[in-house]
């Protein structure tokens, strides 16, 4: 058995002459939970699809759970659980019928028992005869997670599972991911746009424009960014942001709530900019850069912002 759940090299996918994914290398040890980040259109979904054999890479190779992603997709499908970005269960089937369908396809023994257990764990036993299409966004995602874990996969590929889900449901969802991965030793690759979720991961992979920009723990990534960040708070903040834009040393400016984060890699320059921008109704303070500061900086560095709003 390969020590890596996912081990791919040079993964590349072109749609026409557009490179959606360009030379991505990933070596993901078993048993970990990885966060997969990057702006919309950066190639997360495409990468995941190539890993589970749903798209043929234009170039590159590798294995998933020890099976070749080019030739052994059937074996990968039996052992991995892939939750699509868009809800893709059958909205005109009931919750129970959806689960039964999945259980039958994977030929799970004790069909009724397995489905009952899953429904109980989900807390959907009382609503099992409702159409899946009538569930709210958060419940749909929980149903999907339950459905893709029913066959006890060794690897979970979850594509933006918490997009459009309320904060409490997001927390519940992540508790569930951690429960599954720690109880069963399952590996999970989870794409997300949420920093708090990313921070719960063992390791973060960041894509931009189809290329792997950086990876590591949240702490490593922040440290490696070499950013110096100052935080401005107070009434005068809104007027400030336009004023600071484009000053030497200020590489990017972003709002965090009502506060403004001003970051750059050159301490001297940024300190002088901040001193000049001093105003009576603004309070300045140096802070530890957050993961988000680091990602915003990387998105800027990646050059043209080619985000797509899918």
């Amino acid at each position, binding site marked *: 058995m390969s020590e890596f759940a996912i081990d791919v090299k040079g993964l590349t996918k072109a749609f026409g002459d557009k490179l959606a994914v360009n030379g991505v290398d990933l070596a993901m040890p078993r048993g970990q939970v990885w966060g997969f980040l990057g702006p919309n259109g950066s190639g997360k979904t495409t990468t995941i699809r190539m890993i589970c054999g749903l798209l043929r890479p234009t170039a590159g190779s590798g294995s998933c759970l020890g099976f070749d992603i080019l030739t052994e997709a059937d074996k990968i499908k039996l052992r991995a659980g892939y939750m*699509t970005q868009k809800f893709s269960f059958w909205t005109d089937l009931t919750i129970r019928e959806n689960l039964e369908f999945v259980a039958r*396809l994977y030929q799970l023994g004790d069909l009724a028992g397995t489905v009952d257990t899953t429904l109980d764990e989900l807390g959907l036993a009382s609503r099992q005869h409702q159409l899946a299409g009538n569930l709210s966004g958060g419940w749909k995602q929980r149903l999907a997670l339950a459905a893709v874990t029913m066959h006890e996969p060794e690897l979970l590929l979850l594509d933006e599972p918490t997009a459009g889900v309320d904060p409490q449901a997001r927390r519940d969802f992540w508790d569930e991911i951690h429960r599954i991965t720690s109880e069963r030793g399952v590996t999970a690759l989870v794409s997300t746009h949420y920093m708090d979720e990313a921070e719960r991961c063992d390791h973060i992979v960041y894509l931009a424009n189809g290329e792997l920009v950086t990876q590591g723990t949240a702490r490593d990534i922040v440290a490696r960014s070499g950013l110096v960040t100052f935080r401005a708070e107070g009434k005068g903040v809104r007027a400030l942001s336009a004023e600071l834009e484009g000053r030497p040393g200020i590489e990017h400016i972003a709002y965090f709530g009502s506060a403004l984060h001003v970051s750059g890699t050159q301490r001297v320059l940024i300190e002088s900019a901040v001193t000049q921008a001093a105003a009576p109704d603004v309070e300045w303070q140096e802070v530890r850069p957050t993961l988000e500061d680091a990602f915003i900086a990387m998105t800027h560095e990646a050059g043209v912002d080619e985000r797509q709003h899918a």
Partner: protein
Amino acid sequence: MIGSGFSGRVLAIFIKEFAQMRRDRFTFALMLGVPILQLVLFGYAINTNPKHLPTAVYAAESTPIVRSLLKGLENSDYFDLVEQGNDPRQGQHLLARGDVAFVVTIPPGFTADLIAARRPQLLVEADATDPSVAANALGQADAIFASALRHDLKGPLAGLRPGQQPFELVVHRKFNPEGITQYNIVPGLLGVILTLTLVMITGIAMTREAERGTMENLLAMPARPFEVMVGKIAPYLVVGAVQTLVILIAARFLFAVPFAGNMALLMLGLVIFVIANLAVGFTFSTIAATQMQAMQMTVFFFLPSILLSGFMFPFRGMPGWAQVIGEVLPLTHFLRVVRGVMLKGVSIGDIVYPLLAMTLFTTVVCTIAMLRYRRTLD
């Protein structure tokens, strides 16, 4: 009241619709394709006054008079001699299979009786399952034979010419002696209805998954293409069975269509035919990008099926190229089976060829479906 912005908003919608129409190439192609297809089929393929109908001749003797008769038959536009022999039983088989539309029998002693002015009988048996096929040709038969003999009835035989024909033309309209069109149409409708509904239903089998976004999920799970196809087709076997039952009951009790043959034989033909159509629909759904396209393909398949199969217009009346296309279509073969079994009471030997043809068709179509089935999202 029409407001001042009326024309502007109409224009806005017009431009939007036009842009969308232009982008939907498939529909655009179909809007040109269907009229062309119909023009060609109705203009060239369909002939409501069928000529050159295959005819078998069994002549017990080969006298100059008989030869003249056969020559006259051959020279006519209506009859094509495809089989000539002396075992009249062979002719019955050919009629039952639909290989020939007519069997002409010239009995022994025909010439002698003719010369002796004893008015011998000349027997013409017609496959009257489709009354319209036989009607025109039979109407002409008397005249054709008479003019064929005109040159022979000279000299001593000239006395036979005036007035009455020197022979008696006996016509047997077989399988449907009263010429009731329903007998022909109702069994045919069984095939037509099954074709339309089954191809349409399975045509959306895969496209619906693609359009609703469930395709990705299906592909991510361990189901092989053949398993998906069989699983998706099987429920409609039941639908086909129910439809068949309804139509057969209606045929019996509403239209009093006779059932001459063997029910098991009909069932065999039905099962093969239903699977053939389901396979066509499934194949369309692997080719089409949307449910709409699958529907359009169904129309494109249905048109020739109904026009070139011999359902609406006599198969033998069509030009060769149209018959070749017709031979490909499962409905053509099914019509031979269903009319053969219900109206003619044929045995399995007579319908082996159409059964095999439908099986071959199904195999080819399933192979295409398997080749076209997307295992990935590419």
